[in-house]
């Protein structure tokens, strides 16, 4: 615990490498799903910060995944940027676009904000479908071979392992941020905007920052998603994908806690995926788990775990 609070970067790097190499031991047909799980966790964690932490409802997660996927391919094929330059650029671009979305929707809150982000998603989707050669129209784009300096061709398996590592980095970054002055400022402005302002918190800046931070992460997840699927397809990035993400955040808990955002995808994405033998019953299974978790833990998994922890360890149990 001390090591973590002193040297979080070190801890995260070690954990990322460890989990990444552990993941590469998994048989490859499974590894693909594990990679996707990592992507879903990244998105859920980002949204948990945005919605649970800063209280900003957004249905634009699918849009930013599309931004990540499309622009990384465009950057590599049209601009001929190397992979290692393209990805950071795309993440920064996604963050900037997110910041812009946050800025223009500053005056909106709650459902109004959610609806505005749906508008953004729809505009973007239409743009992608009718973008001609640039976006590949209804077929989307195909991923060029992925080349790193010492690895001529990156396999899907290594992408999945890398995704696991980056997921660990994201989770670490989200946890440290939420437990810093910025995370507290987000929770403060969510709970009481007037009181937050009187602490000298620039509420507008903080909201834009929350959008930028989380959109950057979601764009990175979108990049990895496109790598895993070797391309983009506009029919992936729909509103139902956004709604799936929001479901995960709600099940995880809307308190700004990251733990729930990691566990919810495990329960609601990974479990149904692994029992693929369920076939047609898969959706039934998903729905049942969804109902069960919400009925048993009405404020989400993180709150549920917390009350169990308090029962076991007394009220001294820390926030998780």
């Amino acid at each position: 615990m001390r090591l973590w609070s002193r040297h979080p970067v070190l801890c995260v790097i070690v954990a990322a490498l460890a989990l990444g190499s552990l993941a590469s031991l998994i048989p490859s047909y499974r590894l693909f799903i594990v990679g996707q799980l990592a992507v879903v966790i990244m998105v859920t964690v980002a949204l948990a910060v945005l919605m649970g932490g800063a209280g900003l409802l957004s249905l634009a997660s699918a849009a930013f995944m599309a931004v990540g996927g499309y622009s990384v391919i465009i950057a590599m094929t049209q601009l001929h940027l190397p992979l290692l330059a393209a990805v950071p650029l795309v993440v920064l671009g996604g963050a900037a676009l997110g910041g812009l979305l946050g800025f223009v929707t500053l005056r909106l809150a709650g459902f109004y904000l959610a609806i505005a982000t749906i508008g953004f998603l729809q505009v973007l989707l239409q743009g992608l479908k009718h973008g001609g050669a640039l976006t590949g129209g209804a077929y989307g784009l195909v991923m060029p071979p992925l080349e790193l300096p010492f690895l001529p061709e990156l396999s899907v398996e290594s992408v999945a392992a890398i995704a696991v590592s980056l997921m660990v980095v994201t989770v670490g970054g989200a946890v440290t941020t939420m437990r810093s002055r910025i995370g507290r400022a987000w929770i403060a402005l969510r709970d009481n905007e007037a009181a937050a302002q009187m602490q000298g918190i620039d509420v507008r800046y903080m909201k834009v920052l929350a959008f930028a931070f989380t959109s950057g992460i979601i764009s990175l997840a979108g990049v990895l998603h496109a790598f895993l699927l070797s391309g983009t397809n506009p029919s992936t990035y729909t509103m139902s994908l956004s709604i799936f993400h929001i479901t995960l955040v709600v099940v995880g808990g809307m308190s700004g806690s990251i733990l729930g955002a990691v566990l919810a995808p495990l329960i609601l994405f990974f479990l149904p995926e692994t029992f693929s033998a369920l076939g047609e019953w898969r959706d039934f299974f998903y729905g049942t788990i969804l109902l069960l978790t919400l009925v048993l833990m009405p404020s989400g998994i993180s709150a549920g775990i917390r009350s169990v922890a308090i029962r076991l360890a007394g009220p001294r149990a820390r926030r998780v």
Partner: protein
Amino acid sequence: MSALLEASDLRVSFGGVHALDGFSVAVDEGEIHGIIGPNGAGKTTAINVLTGFVKLHGGRVRFGGHPLPGRPHLIAQAGIGRTFQSSAIFPDLTALENVMCGGHRWSRTGLFGCMVRSKVARAEEAELRRMASVWLERVGFQFPHEAPVRALPFGEHRKMEIARALMGKPRLLLLDEPTAGLTPTEVHLVGRLLKALRSDSAHPLSILLVEHNVPFIFSLCDRVTAVDKGATIVSGSPAEIRRHGGVIQSYLGNEGAAEPQAVPRRGETHLAEGTPPVLEMRQVEAGYGRVKVIRGIDLKVGAGELIVICGRNGAGKSTLLNALVGQPRVLGGQVLWFGERIDGLSVSQIVRKGLALVPQERGIISEQSVEANLKLSTIGLRLRRAEYRARRDSLMERFPKLWERRTQIAGTLSGGERQMLALAKALIRRPKLLVLDEPSIGLAPTIVEALAGMVADICRDGISVIVAEQNVWWVAPLAQRAYLLESGKFIAEGAPEDVIHRERILENFLGETDTDEMPPELGPAFAESPGAEILSAQRDVHGG
């Protein structure tokens, strides 16, 4: 020397309401300045103007010789801190984190630094943490600093908010009723703290505070400004204000006199033999989750009786009253209503029987108008329109100010007006038992007097009343019995004067520094209660 803060001739109107209409105040460097005035006079609006939440329609404000910046966070950064009249805490953060938020103004780490927890970020975080716990100690916060704050007593929220405001190292501190809901000892502590802050040479602080606690404000402030109907009546030393005819008439009432007098006489006891009491509690236990907040509560209320429950912040008063209406549920013992058990019934069933609670959080519907609030609270009574009108009109005679505001949205009422509305909502149901949780908080002295008269009238009509209060002087002369609650148990009961005397002793015992002996007057029940140990531990912390 020119004043640190100079506001002259401020004007604000909401629709047709002139909330401020010629309000002026000047606060010097290092001064403690008080603002008094009736409910709805515009005091909170003035503070909202000074912190950028409400736009001025006229007038001029200068802070440190400059005009105020336009937005609240810039004003905070310029060095004005404030607390809010109704709790404005961040319920999902711990107490320590709440206070740490106050340091946002002067901490600088950016997003990247926070994310990788850079060296600078760690140092800053440690400093925030250290200062926050120092402030929590200094305001006398009584709970673990890592405690979740949502369920803490109201008074603790107040103290935490003061600590949070101080954390921002302001030059001017605006406090909106900082002592509402605090016990006399805590009020004393806050007064001492404010005085110490003012004379802290390293970091001089000026304070502007709004209060209805008249003795507190007169003993603490260098100067006092009295307002009425949005305008400054007079500004001067406490002695001048106390003598000012206009202030006495509009605000102080009898409080201006040395001792509160002219209070109505206490009625007869109606605990008649044979008939069951209106309410009886037998060995009641209640709490949240597995934690029992109150234990072994025995209480009887006869028809037309007035019962006072006093005790410290966090002693369990609100839990006891809320348990009466079934929220939280009674975990053990019995609650009898005219001899019939009502523990286990739902809140709405209990309320329908004729028990009306005015909770500390006031239970008004903020998005609805005053009139709609009244009407909604009669739902289920199936009143005919004429009957409703008659009840409403007779109530509004008691609360003329509220009637002027009948079309206003309840959420925008002033603190005191909201309080009156909550009372009116309970009274319009004509309950058989009225339960009031700290009803005097936020009310001007004249209104508190009116409240005393009203409660006396209510009892005379045969309605029983239970009042839980920190500030008992106004009800004690009316009450048949008083109970002293400590750590969830009654440690004294009997004639109000005796019980209050015990409470004073307990309070003094907590406030003193140099005795270790528990005063014998507190009695064996107290010495045995688990609270005794906690209290002496707390006393050591505060005394040292």
